[in-house]
């Protein structure tokens, strides 16, 4: 195995225990190797944060030729309805959304909005992963105007959920994250806007009294990083 393959596999958590221990020992004595490891880690982090995650254009002009698809016409009919419905016409998943609003209101009223106050994603993420059976991504979005205020633990549908708390101007935005998946949708209730989508095995609910456009901006940022 080449040295960079070993490093790369090590950072991906794909090197076996013995080889990892050996590599760590090597790194302890070799500052250049340690630095190379850090640079590779940084590269990987950058790709995850800044790599494009493409979404299906909502109303892409369909170019697909029916002649080519003709043999599968029946299947298209059967399925087109399904995909079209799912992708283009987001279902309102009202129950968990309403629950997220209730949790948001409870937290705001009770003044228990934040368990760990920090604008540093590197302290929020480990805090959450240490307390949950999953590890939600905690993106840094201050440049885009959403300042991370901290995080708390909450529950949705009886399951533990992470809540990332962002601020924009005087508005508080709760981002609930829990394992699951769903299509994207949005709705408003009792003066709160809710955005939801699924990504990488996680389901997100954004709840805020922030206006819908800006909340959708945040939803886009979170779903595309």
């Amino acid at each position, binding site marked *: 195995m080449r040295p960079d*393959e070993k490093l790369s596999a090590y950072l*991906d958590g794909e090197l076996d225990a013995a080889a990892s221990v050996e590599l760590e020992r090597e790194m302890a004595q070799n500052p250049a190797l340690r630095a190379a490891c850090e640079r590779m880690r940084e590269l990987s982090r950058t790709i995850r944060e800044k790599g494009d995650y493409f979404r299906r254009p909502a109303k892409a002009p369909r170019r697909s030729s029916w002649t080519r698809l003709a043999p599968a016409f029946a299947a298209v009919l059967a399925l087109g309805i399904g995909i079209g419905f799912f992708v283009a016409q987001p279902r309102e998943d009202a129950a968990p959304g309403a629950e997220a609003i209730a949790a948001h209101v409870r937290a705001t009223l009770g003044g228990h909005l934040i368990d760990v106050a920090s604008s540093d994603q590197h302290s929020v993420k480990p805090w959450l992963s240490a307390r949950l059976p999953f590890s939600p991504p905690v993106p840094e979005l201050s440049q885009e105007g959403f300042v991370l205020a901290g995080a708390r633990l909450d529950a949705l549908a009886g399951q533990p959920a992470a809540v990332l708390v962002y601020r924009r101007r005087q508005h508080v935005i709760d981002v609930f994250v829990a394992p699951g998946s769903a299509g994207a949708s949005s709705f408003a209730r009792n003066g709160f806007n809710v955005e939801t989508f699924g990504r990488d095995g996680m389901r997100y609910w954004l709840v805020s009294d922030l206006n819908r456009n800006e909340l959708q901006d945040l939803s886009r940022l979170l779903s595309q990083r």
Partner: protein
Amino acid sequence: MSERERFERMVLPHVDAAYNLARWLTRNDHDADDVLQDAMLRAYRFFPALRGEPRPWLLAIVRNACWSWLQANRPAELDSSDDAASDAPGPEALAAREFDRAALNQAIAALPVPFREALVLRELEDLSYKEIARIAGVPIGTVMSRLARARRLLAEALRPSAAAPRLRLHK
């Protein structure tokens, strides 16, 4: 629950990941959309054979649809040699910094298909080497070397003083 309902519940939630992969491999919205439609039809047809996780299963179908499409429409893109070149520098030469977003995405798009696909599946879909190997139809060792190579190529392409870009640009 009907077969179609099961399909909608299990497979359709992963259509975003499927599109992202198709988009990265074809590098174009329209082609990605076409390939995705074909792939979804195939997925629907093969759905009864699905065992295990639907996401890697769907991504494998999308990946194969992309390769067939590239073979038919842009065969030159698949010619890139896939050997772990030994002339490449070691890890010391990696120089990751705060990259410009556009430069980063251009550099990923310029990677030869096998490396680009491994990188997208690993970094953007967070799949394991085993899952990537199954999707790409190659041994785990190959995934390991492709990923290392992809990262090396990226780091080189993004190095500020990169005198001559080593990546072949396909377009």
